[in-house]
């Protein structure tokens, strides 16, 4: 299988990449390529030009800032999986990164590439939505920052315009007594998720839920915040009964597909099961 012919650009800076994209509306950005090249080989995608940013090493970093952890868009899943900083502050990203594809894919695939590809069944978009990530998007017009809920706009669609490049993903530190987790439900290692569930939560006064974010993947065109379940838990004690009750309403608003990995009904059920399990996994990580 060979991709359709394309023009190839290898810019030496992000600004140069932006310039090329501005001039060429048909061009696609190539990051790690572990999704895009697969689609191109199957001829499901046939961009007339590729702008290869994979060699822009200054976009690969995990940096502790004062208010947030900044992750360069070209940071590989493997680097995320083995980051001590993320393990400490955002373990749900470690959960998600370690379940993506396989070792070879994680060595090349990037967090920014996976976000911009926005496959509804991918792990990173769901985990980043649960972490309330902010996406820094650059263009010739300057820089703008978009929250996860506005970044993922639809099926394989994001807020990144044709002449823009995602440069950084920011994760603001959570308050004390917070924890997070992500669980991917799939039949085999390396498969896409049947359901992916990400949770980040903060507690106060013993075991009372001060705040919680629950994100669901593979249940619709884009990551879904389970807002009814979140509302059910806010201000309540995180005990088995309240968690089970919240999980019962977690699939409200979900619109999962039926395919060979699982029927719609099965997925609607699994949302409940994995919402419950992911909340409990996050709680087990509370200090």
């Amino acid at each position, binding site marked *: 299988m060979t991709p359709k012919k394309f023009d*190839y650009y290898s810019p030496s800076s992000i600004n140069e990449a932006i310039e090329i994209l501005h001039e060429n509306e048909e061009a696609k950005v190539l990051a790690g390529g572990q999704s895009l090249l697969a689609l191109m080989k199957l001829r499901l995608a046939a961009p007339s030009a590729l702008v290869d940013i994979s060699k822009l090493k200054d976009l690969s970093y995990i940096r502790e800032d004062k208010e947030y952890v900044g992750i360069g868009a070209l940071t590989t899943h493997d680097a995320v999986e083995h980051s001590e900083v993320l393990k400490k502050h955002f373990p749900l990203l470690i959960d998600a990164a370690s379940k993506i594809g396989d070792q070879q894919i994680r060595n090349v695939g990037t967090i920014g590439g996976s976000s911009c590809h926005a496959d509804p069944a991918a792990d990173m978009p769901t985990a980043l939505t649960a972490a309330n990530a902010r996406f820094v998007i650059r263009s010739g017009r300057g820089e703008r920052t978009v929250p996860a809920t506005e970044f993922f706009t639809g099926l394989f669609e994001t807020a990144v315009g044709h002449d823009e490049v995602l440069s950084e993903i920011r994760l603001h530190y959570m308050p004390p007594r917070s924890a997070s987790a992500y669980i991917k439900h799939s039949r085999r290692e390396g498969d896409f998720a049947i359901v992916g569930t990400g949770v980040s939560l903060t507690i106060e006064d013993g075991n009372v839920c001060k705040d919680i974010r629950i994100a669901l993947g593979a249940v619709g065109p884009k990551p879904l915040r389970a807002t009814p379940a979140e509302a059910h838990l806010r201000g309540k004690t995180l005990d088995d009964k309240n968690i089970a009750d919240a999980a019962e309403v977690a699939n409200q608003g979900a619109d999962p597909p039926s395919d060979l990995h699982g029927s719609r009904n099965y997925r609607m059920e699994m949302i409940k099961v994995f919402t419950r399990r992911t909340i409990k996994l996050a709680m087990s990580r509370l200090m």
Partner: protein
Amino acid sequence: MMKAVTKSDLVQVTCKINGKEYKGMAEPRLLLVHFLRDELNLTGTHIGCDTGHCGACTIFMNGKTVKSCMVLAIQANGAEITTVEGLADGDKLHPIQEAFWENHGLQCGYCTPGMLIAGLFLLQRNPDPTDDEIRRGIEGNLCRCTGYVNIVKSIKAAAKKMQPEDTKATKAM
């Protein structure tokens, strides 16, 4: 604006493979695995599925394992690559090759080049892996003959062979 390499242009790709410099021509859409096999005649790297699933085309590129059907040849310009041809030292097999031979880690052998490279990457990071860690390390490599049991055994045996003598002694004590 910078100039593109246009659709049918052939550009020279230079890379260091198994310690030796290679040059070849590639159009932008040529995949690295085809470049290695057809342009450079290094046919040890196999093509199994061509969709990024099977891992038969796994190679080392700049110190990390990649599936060479998921990378463009043009992206490998300037890269340092190790393929299965680079493992043995003349007639002397690499310890991981010996271990596969001795433990019957292959039947048809089609997946073996990828298994050896993936196994070696795992052992570089984790010199004494458990069975579970080995299975996770080779999750991106499919074998349709062995059922993986002997492959796991082979990688475990390779770990023993590759341990430096002094750690072997400490472990025995």
